């Protein structure tokens, strides 16, 4: 499945992650017998994992090019708030069929996300500013615009049908999971199987050499940030549907967690290597930990703390491992 970049070490990494996931599921089941390994719990995890997972995919692609997208969550909420605003307005106006309202809302979400992505992409690819700095700025701008629209409170008043997206399920599989799987497939297709995807890894590995090979690296980068923002938009729709309201401060802890999932999933923080499915596995791992802790009774906030530690630990291990490799060569 990993035909594009066949390093033995990377395949080792994927298997290790899967093994870790199995281990954690087993561990959690033991620690909370009868509560973890239930359809109900897995269904719950499915509800929560989707929005986070899609965000993590969006973050991964940016990190693969050697950058980072700090504005990911803020663009998710901005586009979701824009859509929510429209939906509420249309709903209050009355007389418009629910499906039309929802479709329009989602369309607005997509348009706004693409715009956010293009803003990021413009500064990173065409002005040439480091993505860290660009997304630091756009994060604040997007947040400000969101707050301006919501005035600090939440937007609600959507058609009931909308809630079904985030809360409904078919055959015990939440709709959100189906959307998540679709997103994974789309991401896998684009990033692991198309020329653009290969270019993403190449740009992350050595932008200059890729440019010297006649690839339009500016266009590649622009598409990266638009893709990232579109993923964020989808996640935003799921979040708003789940909470049935849109607030500017939703999902604030997701930024760090998305980076953690990316890094845990085997993507190099400096870019050039990684795998979408690695991030997906890492998302599962983090979700299992979070839900498991919750069931056992550990406070949700401690889970956040643990995620932070995981991130630092993975990066530290990578750092020292790379140093070892360099010393061995010399």
């Amino acid at each position, binding site marked *: 499945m990993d*035909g*594009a*970049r*066949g*390093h033995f070490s990377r395949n080792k990494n994927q298997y290790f992650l899967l093994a870790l996931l199995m281990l954690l599921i087993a561990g959690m089941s033991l620690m909370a017998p009868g509560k973890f390994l239930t359809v109900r719990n897995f269904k719950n995890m499915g509800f929560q994992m989707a929005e986070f997972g899609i965000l993590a995919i969006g973050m991964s692609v940016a990190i693969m090019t050697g950058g980072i997208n700090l504005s990911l969550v803020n663009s998710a909420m901005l586009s979701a708030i824009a859509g929510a605003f429209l939906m509420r307005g249309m709903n209050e106006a009355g007389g418009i069929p629910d499906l039309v309202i929802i479709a329009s809302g989602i369309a607005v979400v997509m348009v706004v996300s693409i715009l956010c992505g293009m803003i990021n992409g413009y500064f990173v690819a065409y002005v040439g500013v480091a993505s860290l700095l660009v997304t630091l700025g756009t994060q604040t701008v997007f947040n400000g615009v969101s707050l301006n629209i919501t005035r600090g409170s939440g937007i609600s008043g959507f058609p009931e049908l909308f809630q079904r997206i985030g809360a409904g399920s078919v055959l015990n599989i939440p709709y959100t999971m189906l959307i998540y799987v679709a997103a994974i497939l789309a991401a896998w*297709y684009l990033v692991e*199987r*198309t*020329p653009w995807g*290969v*270019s993403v*890894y*190449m740009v992350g*590995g*050595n932008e*200059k*050499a*890729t*440019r*010297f*090979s*006649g*690839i*339009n690296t500016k266009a590649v980068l622009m598409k990266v940030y638009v893709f990232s923002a579109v993923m964020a938009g989808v996640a935003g729709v799921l979040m708003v549907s789940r909470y049935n309201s849109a607030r500017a401060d939703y999902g604030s802890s997701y930024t760090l967690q998305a980076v953690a999932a990316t890094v845990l999933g085997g993507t190099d923080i400096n870019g*050039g*290597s990684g795998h979408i499915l690695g991030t997906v596995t890492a998302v599962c791992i983090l979700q299992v930990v979070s839900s498991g802790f919750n069931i056992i009774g550990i406070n949700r906030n401690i889970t956040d703390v643990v995620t932070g530690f995981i991130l630092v630990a993975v990066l530290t291990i990578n750092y020292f491992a790379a140093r070892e490799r360099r010393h061995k060569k010399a």
Partner: protein
Amino acid sequence: MAQSGAFLRLENVSKTFPGVNALSGVGFDVRRGEVHALIGENGAGKSTLIKVLTGVYQPDPGAIIEIEGKRVENLTALDAMRRGIIAIYQDFSLFPTLTVKENIAFSEQIERHNHLVDWRGMEKTARKALESLGVSIDLRARANTLSTARQQLVAIARALVYDAKLLVMDEPTSALSSGEVDMLFKIVRSLRDRGMAIIFISHKLDELFSIADRMTVLRDGRLIGTAPTAEMDRKKLISMMVGREISDERMRGKGAGDVVLEVKNISKHGNYQNVSFQLRKGEVLGITGLVGAGRTETVLSLFGMNPPDSGEICLEGKKVMPRSPAEAKKLGIAFVPESRQTEGLVLQQDAEGNLTLPVLKDFAGRSGMIDFKKRRQRAQELIQKLNVRPAYPGMQALKFSGGNQQKIVVAKWLATNPKILIVDEPTNGIDVGAKAEIHRLLRDLADSGIAVIMVSSELPEIFSISDRILVMRRGRITGEFDGATATQEMLMEKAVLA
């Protein structure tokens, strides 16, 4: 004028790297109060020699280093600095956002282990240093606001604060105007008259005849000779620089075809001026000259990276002006850059990825998905064609040897079926065996109909396959020769002299 007694003496210095003898048995000495020029082509061993005497490299066992008459073992970089051996490289290593004052005197403060900054002391030190050079520069100006010439003066002043006894200057005039060169030489002479030993590395023979007291020529890692400037003349110098037997056969081509590229009078401010030449199918056009002559800048203009301000480029009769490598690629122009590790390859990726990068779109089927089997096949074909070893498309590019890495870079462009292949220093840092292989490869490619432009500083390489040779100097083309009849002396003359 020159005080006798060598400050630094090297004897039997050799330095071997895997596959390359950078230096072999070189003996060299520098006296106090002299300007000693170190001359040689690219790859002659000058920078390696400098790195040995500044302690950056350790020479092979058997070398003797004497400083002020006393033998020194295991000279380290810090050690060399403490003994007064200071090198000023082309980047000056200044602190760009700090002031002139600080750049000159900061290290002194560090040596003193102060906790508080002694601004007055720094001011005094910096002022004294500049005065002793006879220059006045605003002490409060930030280093990155100064012209290159002035930054260099700051670097020299800083060396004085270090109490430099031997000053090594590496290509000091490459970025200076002639007025600034005069200024620099005045200072160099005054330093010499005060007893400093100075090693001056430069290609610009005219300047060296004016400033140097003695000259040493290196070639292919060996000492060719050392003599006082008074006993040298240009002809002798050039023949010392290049006077090697060309044992390689000159690989002759099958004969050139129609004109495929015509460059008409292109100019770009600060890069090249009034450059014109033609290129025919099936021929290898060598472009030589010294570093800084503008060769790379000129050929980059054909690849969309340095478009000219004026002039025309005609490809197969049609006017073209590529503005990006992507555009050049579409026109059928390929470029193998000088630095294969930073510009030519994505080292993290495998050979297959690198080989197929320019033509990725070819492997996308109707679904848009890449057919990886097809890609691997293509990669295998290219590997076979160019005899890349080991023949593993899945191996990381990093792990291939220099020569094979270069073959990968050339191979990746072959996949685009180029009309014109430009290579810049194609065998830089590659061992002799692989060199020959690559030369044969380039010749064969030309014979198959591709027009090849080869930029190179290595004269033997130029001779081995070029049908025609252009020489550039200071942004202009100064000579055009037939590959069969040209001699090294002819080329070097056009490269270094007006």
